[in-house]
């Protein structure tokens, strides 16, 4: 019978040590809302000999939101703490979009953005949003820490560029420039406890009626969440309005390479990319105009 060991790491160093010594068969666990299900289902992509609980590591529980320095979300911070934080609500309202719709209330008591990112599901609801916010992941390993843009973390379904001996410490979002607005919208047939058929995370910077910068990212339309450069190019420098938004939405549709499965056909998903990108951009523009 297969036994899985449980280790409760108290420091980053302790966690890295266990990860380094486990021959790739150790799995860090924050809320465990994905990991435990995968282990119980004997998912071949989650073969673990040891589970390393990281919830008690102080560095991974930092939630710091400051209009001058940006937002730091420790890898183990549960979602409910994010959406109940007054500063996050005030300065990064679009982050609440993802935090409040992953799973349901019970899941949100345990699940974390860090776990959502490291699980690297194509449908991860936090990931396009973090990409839209120019998120940077801070990763610790035996040789120190390194910073990686969030869009470079996921390399395939359940695969990341984080090494087996490395640990995600936090995700850091820079201070938004003036005229910033962001939004994450996903489409699900059910209103909670569902997996995105398509998710769209976008941000815009608006100055004097023009898009000065933008980010567009999609979930559930490729092996990983994707950053859609063509959609961004359709916006930057253009006048804020339906024409540019529609061009960006069309670019999002073209960039999507979805599959057909029980959650929707490829054709339907491509259609939704256009709809959701447009809706997310309009919501982001509203926030930018409101100065949120």
């Amino acid at each position: 019978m297969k036994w899985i060991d449980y280790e409760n790491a108290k420091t980053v160093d302790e966690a890295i040590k266990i990860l380094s010594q486990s021959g790739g068969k150790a799995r860090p666990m924050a809320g465990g809302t994905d990991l435990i299900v995968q282990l119980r289902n004997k998912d071949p992509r989650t073969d673990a000999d040891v589970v390393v609980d990281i919830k008690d590591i102080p560095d991974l529980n930092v939630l710091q939101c400051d209009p001058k320095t940006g937002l730091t979300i420790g890898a183990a911070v549960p979602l409910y703490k994010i959406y109940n934080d007054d500063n996050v609500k005030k300065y990064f309202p679009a982050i609440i979009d993802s935090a409040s719709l992953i799973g349901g209330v019970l899941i949100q008591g345990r699940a974390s953005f860090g776990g959502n990112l490291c699980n690297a599901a194509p449908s991860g609801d936090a990931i396009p949003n973090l990409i839209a916010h120019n998120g940077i992941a801070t990763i610790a390993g035996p040789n120190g820490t390194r910073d990686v843009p969030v869009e470079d973390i996921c390399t395939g379904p359940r695969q990341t560029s984080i090494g087996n001996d490395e640990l995600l410490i936090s995700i850091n979002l820079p201070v938004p420039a003036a005229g910033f607005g962001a939004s994450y919208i996903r489409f699900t047939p059910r209103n909670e406890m569902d997996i995105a058929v398509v998710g769209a995370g976008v941000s815009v910077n608006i100055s004097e009626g023009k898009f000065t910068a933008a980010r567009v990212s999609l979930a559930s339309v490729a092996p990983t969440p994707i950053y859609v450069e063509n959609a961004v190019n359709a916006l930057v420098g253009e006048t804020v309005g339906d024409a540019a938004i529609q061009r960006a939405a069309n670019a999002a549709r073209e960039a999507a390479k979805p599959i057909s499965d029980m959650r929707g056909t490829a054709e339907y998903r491509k259609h939704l990319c256009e709809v959701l990108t447009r809706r997310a951009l309009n919501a982001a523009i509203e926030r930018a105009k409101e100065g949120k």
Partner: protein
Amino acid sequence: MTSSDSTDYKVLGTRPIRHDGADKVTGRAIYGPDFDTAGLLHGKILRSPHAHARIISIDTSEAEALDGVMAVVTGADWPNNSNGTSMVEDGTGTEIESNSNWLRENLLAGDKVLYAGHAIAGVAAASPHVAEEALALIEVKYEVLEPVLTIQEAMAKNAPILHEGLTTQELGEDSGVVSNTADHFQHTKGNIEKGFEAADVVVEREYNTVMVHQGYIEPHNGTALWNTDGRLHVWCSTQGSFVVRDSLSDLLDIPVSQIRVTPTEIGGGFGGKIPIYVEPVAALLSKKTGSPVKIVMSRKEVFEGSGPTAGSNIKIKLGAKSDGTITAAHAWMAMEAGGYPGSPVGAAAQCVFAAYDIENALVDGYDVVVNKPKTAPYRAPGAPNAAFGMEQAMNELAEMLQMDPIDLRLKNVATEGTRRVDGPTFRRIGAKEVLETMRDHPHYQAAKTEGHGRGIAIGFWFNIGFDSACNIAVNSDGSINLTEGSTDIGGSRTSIAMHAAEVLGIPVEDVRPSVVDTDTIGFTAVTGGSRTTFATGWAAYEAAQDVKKQSIERAASIWDVDSDTLNMEDGVIKSKTDSELKMTFKELASQMSDTGGGITGRASVNPKGVGGSFAGNMVDVSVDDETGKVTIERFTCVQDVGKAIHPSYVEGQMQGGSAQGIGWALNEEYFMNDQGNMANSSLLDYRMPTSLDLPMIDTAIVEVANPGHPFGVRGVGEANIVPPTPAIANAVSDATGNIMTQLPLTPGAVLDSGK
């Protein structure tokens, strides 16, 4: 609305706190998976990965050799009386003859597996983990066969055959033709050719629905101890402890006297916990090991290895005069039985036209086997499928005739004396009152919000009677202990207790109801067919009458008067002639021991006066025209319940059936890949509605007393799931202008319906 006599009840119609409430809200109630006993072993079941395959061989030797494994059983362990037939209740009021081999083979396969998830072997081990590991060591060699996954595929010429020995019963005669169609039957009334000739307008359309699951929260479970004295004791959560006992007797070939079934609390059933699955496997494992063995299904096993309800292919043709009078109706309905015969098409045929008085009608029913789990009852089995077609056709007819859809229904509504196409003539029913309540309801009177669609539909379920038993023992403090055998799914303990309290004129809090095991109470049929409050309530009524009669006789003997001169009202026994002679039931109870001993009442009933129930829905929806997503904006359920014993539980039934119907309409489906494997066998991807997907479901109780029950009770559990699928489809059609011929109405399907 009440058309029953305005009887002045003291207990009926009130909303007392349920007797099992404290245990349930504090988590102390014992459900099947909670059961534990000394020396308990854990069982797991090996299931087929293939939807259709011949089993070449099963090698269990490695599994048996694994440390911690105590026994392995396969289909070879069934007793060897292989040619029998068993009578099984199909949960719809019908005792059907079934091949005992089929029943056994569904629980542990014979030479074929007929669906992915079909049970093949059971393992008992010291821990569930060891048992699970042992499953991987059982080597099964298969000859994989082409699966048959839809009715259309199964009925096609040259379709792969599931059962080489299955020949079609054609209108009651064995046709001798080997096929996947187990049965074709007809119900006829009048002459439909003439009826269609007389019609000014005709509607004809084909509808499809897919397999869906009841979705009860608690998985199937059972613990069996086959003792050294030959007695088998089973603890399980079931809708019918006596059904478990009798099924085990058939399957294991032992007398019912050797079996005791103790029902635990039950976490939902909706019909799906009428059949048994793991109990006989646990029994066979217990026989081999001499230890108690517990088996609990996983959610995946519940989806793939229990009994969902049928997908269906339905064609409806209606003809009507220009004034709205329906002149002819034809329903052609084929339903999936799953791997073995026995779909709900028989019940569907009883319900499809039941709401209407139609002079000329024909129903063709086809029971079709496919490589999917064997279907089981699900809340008004077959009726929602039938209504999905019929009630959409009615709306289409109303549109052609430019009539209000409720007016069209009222024009043709069935009333007392209407003969159903399947034979029975209605006694007093409430179809008309339900429709009138809908018509006059604020929901229907309110203007539709701009852009929303509105739909209506009605539905019928016939309900059943059957056996129930009840015992009452009077305590010295004037309270009573009431024992009965109906497992309590929706608050029936309290509703049953209220019957006794009303008769005796005592507070329902003075009744202590218990659901007891099969050694302790007389035969009681399933909690199903909306029969429990009707029939077991009736048993409680009779048992309480027995107590009342004895109490009056006891008082008569104390006072030395003729018992005919006494009566008992509001819990007081008094003389009709001498106002000095009176005593409360409590006072009498305190004197029982000194005046002749305790008083116990008892009753066993099999009431025939069952009254069918009609339910109607009004639904407003909005449809996102870019995504196709349907949002239920307003939902009203109207139902004739006869007499609402406990209105809160009646409303709960109406809301529960509506919620399940909404899920069935919008998102629920067995999503099968082309090899017949279910792709969404988890509660994440099966997508039953959550609280955020449901509006407040408004209820309007209609009370047209059932003349066949002392308090006018009809069953309330099922009719309410019948109208939601067509009412929602009608609302979506109204919003989009497109007719919805296929369930579920997923966003993608709704968006595509316009193409």
